[in-house]
């Protein structure tokens, strides 16, 4: 078992109305590694991510049972501050979602919400975040032009920078390379491997190969159930469950 888990799920069920999206998930996610969540469409991957920072709260009519702990603290506790939780557990979505503002304003958005208003301080944060997302060199001369004018790959790295600007502890990425060309994908994967030095990364890869390239551990989900979880080598070479094997070898997907 991994050292001390960053995130622990215990008997976690999640429902959209009467539909069960996650069923009795028990999982421990170790710190400073890349944890990949594999599974076919509608297996609960995105729901799992959005449960971890309670973005699911935005949707009406959802329900859950069980527990999720972040550093041993129950995140569904009524005492918890949601903005604070989301700053600690950042999320990058499957499609690039820059706000219709300048590059600078996009990255400064989160820090500003936190109450940082000093121009100098914001400039430092923005540059640091853009460097960490391997985007600084490409945009340093046009941080004040609209983020919508960046290419798709640049926009997605901007979204990563936006999350990094909040100095989170956990970064979740939901198929961050869907809709991106191989070169942009490679540069995002490069930044992912750098990120795990400091952060706990949870990744829904956009294909199985990506998981094998970057992940340390893999969890395989099917219809809302965690079928199997383990180190990447073991899952890819000696899966314990027949369904995992079938999925990895491409018999369904």
């Amino acid at each position, binding site marked *: 078992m991994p050292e001390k888990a960053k995130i622990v799920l215990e008997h976690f069920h999640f429902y959209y109305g009467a539909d069960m999206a996650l069923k009795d998930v028990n999982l421990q996610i170790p710190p400073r590694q890349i944890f990949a969540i594999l599974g076919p469409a509608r297996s609960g991957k995105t729901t799992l991510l959005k449960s971890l920072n309670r973005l699911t709260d*935005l949707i009406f009519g959802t329900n859950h049972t069980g527990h999720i702990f972040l550093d041993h603290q129950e995140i569904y506790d009524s005492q918890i501050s949601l903005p604070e939780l989301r700053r600690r557990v950042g999320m990058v979505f499957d499609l690039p979602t820059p706000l*219709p*503002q300048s590059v600078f304003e996009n990255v400064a*958005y989160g820090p500003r919400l*936190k109450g940082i208003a000093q121009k100098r301080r914001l400039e430092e944060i923005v540059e640091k975040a853009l460097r960490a997302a391997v985007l600084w060199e490409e945009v340093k001369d046009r941080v004040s032009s609209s983020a*919508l004018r960046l290419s798709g790959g640049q926009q997605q790295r901007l979204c990563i920078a936006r999350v990094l600007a909040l100095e989170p502890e956990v970064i979740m990425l939901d198929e961050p390379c869907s809709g991106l060309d191989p070169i942009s994908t490679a540069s995002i994967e490069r930044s992912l491997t750098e990120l795990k030095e400091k952060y706990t990364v949870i990744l829904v890869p956009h294909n199985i190969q990506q998981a094998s390239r970057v992940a340390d551990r893999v969890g395989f989900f099917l219809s809302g159930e965690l079928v199997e979880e383990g180190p990447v080598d073991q899952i890819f070479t000696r899966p314990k469950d027949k369904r995992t094997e079938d999925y990895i070898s491409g018999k369904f997907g």
Partner: protein
Amino acid sequence: MISRYTSQRVGKGVVWVAAFSTLAVMIWILLQVLVEGLPLLNLDFFMDSPRQMGRTGGIFSTIIGTLALTAVAIVIATPLGVGTAVYLREYTRESRVSRIIRFGTDCLAGVPSIIFGLFGFVFFVILLRMGWSILSGGLTLAAMILPTIICTAEEAIKAIPYSYREVSFALGGTRWQTVAKVILPNAMPGIFTGVLLGVGRSVGETAAIILTAGSSLLIPTSLFSPTRTMSVHFYILAREGISMEMAYATGAALILMILGINTLANWLLWRYFRKVGG
């Protein structure tokens, strides 16, 4: 059996006639007023107050009245309307309450202006003792244009992608921060359109204003002064046969003013967008 070719031609003909009759009616109305009124316009007409009930002199006091009434209406209706739209879209989901609010605004939109005038007269003028005044008239107009502002603001907010909200929350935003920094700035063009429609309706209104703001030709000195707007002036000049010439001149000035307001608004919007960068 009509051939496909014929039905195509007839169809095209029908929509063509519809489109061009609309244009023709519009041009005819504008021309009628402008041709009769424009030659009478000069600086004195704008800067002088009406004399002999408007038979001679200018329309200065009615311009002030129009601007003041419209301003009061917009200043009151915009925050109320936008606030309602934000509440309906961002703070509550489709429920009994939101349906009641929406039904109420729909009804309000269909009420004839004379009814608003009567309500304003009974409520603001008499009951609240505001008398015939810019305040009474402005409040009445505000109630009249509120549904338009709510409706257009709501449409604009509805059109904002869900992902913007999700991003804002994911970056640690509270609901209010999301509304203030993402929703309202992006809904601004739609809100602006609604406000402009409200301005148009306020400037053009007569019945409700005569009942609530009166028809005084004096230059108003406070919110509690009675006043006469350009539309009311036009109506009284024409209706009471005081001076058809002056009526047309007022009409022409009114049209110029509406054009001016629209141009100014478009320019402001354009500048706003250049600053935000889209």
